[in-house]
């Protein structure tokens, strides 16, 4: 191959390229589609890794779905709070600022707290245990401890404690709700990190029965309901419920009278030196009067 043909090759290919590029540029102007300008602005803010962590092919699709309201603001697991805040600004959703959603485990009936009724030797899955006689715990509402929620977590944000209860790593938790769906007993709920007071029990048995199955069960004594303003807490089926809209998010706890310590404070701890295996990230301070 001599130099001349090299030159010709470069010229002809370059010429063709330039021609097609010009054609496409004209076509782009002609076929320009008006896009919501917010899509481009959000895309600028997104990490741009196109990792697919949100379940969509890329950041562009996520930005578009976000504007169309098909996905939630916390759908992107890679974004940090700052990014989320700036996207909320673009979307005009100021109320959502910093509102991180995390999973909360509403059961304290671990191996130590709850009573056993027998030995379960079946498939080591919560769903399997749940449908075969309710597993080995006496409580028909509590955590079964086989960690189906942990398996369902796509972000490695959960692990089982030694006591046999799921523990949530708030920094990794994105509030996707997979664990909530996986739990056959609906123990896990998604809450804003600003909600701090929880009735960590689901037992709807009569006071007499629930006291037998777990030392930390809500026995339905109504002491907490009497201690707060009208409507902030209610009793339903022997179980205290908190109305978060009325209760607000104050850290003051007029509910400290719970005799079984079923009402707990769950607060975020700063993310420092978290050891995967040992640290309980959600601090559960048992309330005392």
């Amino acid at each position: 191959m001599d130099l001349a043909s090299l030159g010709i090759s470069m010229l002809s290919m370059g010429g063709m390229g330039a021609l097609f590029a010009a054609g496409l540029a004209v076509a782009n102007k002609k076929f320009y589609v008006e896009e919501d300008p917010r899509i481009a602005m959000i895309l600028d803010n997104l990490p741009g890794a196109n990792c697919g962590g949100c379940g969509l092919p890329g950041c562009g699709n996520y930005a578009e779905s976000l504007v169309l309201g098909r996905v939630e603001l916390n759908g992107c697991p890679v974004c940090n709070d700052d990014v989320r805040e700036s996207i909320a600004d673009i979307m005009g959703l100021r109320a959502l600022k910093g509102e991180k959603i995390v999973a909360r485990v509403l059961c304290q009936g671990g191996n130590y707290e709850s009573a056993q009724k027998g030995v379960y030797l079946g498939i080591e899955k919560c769903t399997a245990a749940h449908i075969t006689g309710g597993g080995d715990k006496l409580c028909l509402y509590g955590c079964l401890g086989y960690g189906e929620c942990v398996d369902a977590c796509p972000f490695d944000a959960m692990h089982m404690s030694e006591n046999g209860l799921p523990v949530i790593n708030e920094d990794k938790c994105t509030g996707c709700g997979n664990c909530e769906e996986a739990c056959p007993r609906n123990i896990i709920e998604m809450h804003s990190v600003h909600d701090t007071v929880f009735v960590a029990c689901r037992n709807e048995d009569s006071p007499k029965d629930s006291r037998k199955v777990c030392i930390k069960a809500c026995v339905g004594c109504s002491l907490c309901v009497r201690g707060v303003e009208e409507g902030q807490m209610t009793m339903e089926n022997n179980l205290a419920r908190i109305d978060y809209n009325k209760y607000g998010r104050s850290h003051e706890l007029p509910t400290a009278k719970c005799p079984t310590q079923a009402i707990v404070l769950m607060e975020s701890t700063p993310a420092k030196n978290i050891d995967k295996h040992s640290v309980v990230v959600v601090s559960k301070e048992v309330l005392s009067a």
Partner: protein
Amino acid sequence: MSYFLIFFSAAIVNNFVLSYFLGICPFVGVSKRVSSAVSMGMAVTFVMLITAVVTWLIYHLILVPFDVVILQYVSFILVIASLVQLVEMFIRKVSKPLYDTLGIFLPLITTNCAILGLALFSVLRDYSFMESVVFGLGAGAGFTLALIIMAGIREELELAPVPKYFQGAAITMIVAGGLALAFMGFAGMI
């Protein structure tokens, strides 16, 4: 060779998808609904037709006179890529739902080997300008035909009691194989 024979050969006897097994990706990917199969077929036919025209011009007016036939692959791909960009812009402007339906398979026409195959075949067979235009039309028609047949069968299949282990991709492959076998019946006609 008469134009009719070229058309008939490209569309049926030597069908690009079912005899040459080119362009299998959209054949499996966009054959769930007849309507989207038709649109995909149209898009591919358009790209094929223009490709046939432009590549013939490039080959005979640039590559051969300047003795740089070695560049045919690169320049053909360049043509195809630009055309697909154009079609993509056009479809996006005209019909956003269609754009969403075709999804990733629309830009993937660029790498659809049926189209590069068409350009290379028409060089290989030394077609005249009109012949390669007819060849492009025939190939596009054949591609659309294969896609529509496949989509028709797959729409019916959704109602059929397919055995559990054959559901989904497996039965699709079996149907594709059956179709290819059927098209083998045309072999030797031309």
